[in-house]
């Protein structure tokens, strides 16, 4: 059973546009939701993360929107740039209990920003 479902699988956006990637989760015990960015040949790098006590978090051009009742969260990349072209993964984890710090990742979204 996939704990975190991510869509779309791939995304093409024009330079300057808004990229939106969506994720949904099942386990209500999850309380930490990071987004990772991965370039070819590299490991994932933490981009931004949110906890369910806030509905939105913004860092520069990157924003996470969180809907606890719908068990969904999304990543918005404003003013998308060709350098943002990468694969993005959402993830979920619990900050307590026997599954502490065990991350469940989505299947990834390959973003291509056209110049």
């Amino acid at each position, binding site marked *: 059973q996939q704990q*975190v479902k*991510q869509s779309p699988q791939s995304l093409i956006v024009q330079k300057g546009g808004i990229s939106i990637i969506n994720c949904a989760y099942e386990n209500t015990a999850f309380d*930490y939701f*990071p987004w*990772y960015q991965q370039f070819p*040949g*590299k*490991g*994932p*790098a*933490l981009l931004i*993360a949110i906890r369910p006590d806030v509905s939105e978090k913004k860092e520069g051009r990157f924003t996470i929107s969180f809907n606890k009742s719908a068990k969904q969260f999304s990543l918005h990349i404003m003013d998308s740039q060709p350098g943002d072209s990468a694969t993005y*993964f959402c*993830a979920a984890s619990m*900050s307590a209990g*026997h*599954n*502490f*710090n*065990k*991350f*469940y*990742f*989505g*299947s*990834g979204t390959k973003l291509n920003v056209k110049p």
Partner: protein
Amino acid sequence: DAGVTQSPTHLIKTRGQQVTLRCSPKSGHDTVSWYQQALGQGPQFIFQYYEEEERQRGNFPDRFSGHQFPNYSSELNVNALLLGDSALYLCASTPDEGFGGYTFGSGTRLTVV
């Protein structure tokens, strides 16, 4: 400050062989987790080590085993390799105190032929 270091970067093995992958965590981190990332997929949790013991494990067979050393570095061992074990193996470290995202290494690309 060096991040997470993994070796080797690439490896080709034959079915049935055994392989050992190595990881040095980021300075100040004492918890190491291993993930398997198949091509085009998200990372899948293999297991996590803390204080030289396996603290939790994902849905991987016993062919996958690990070890953590007193200096917090870690090894992932895979026995009786199958073609399906071909993947990018990622090591991630965190400090045990507090909670936050992982720091990942660049991974070891394992190809089983």
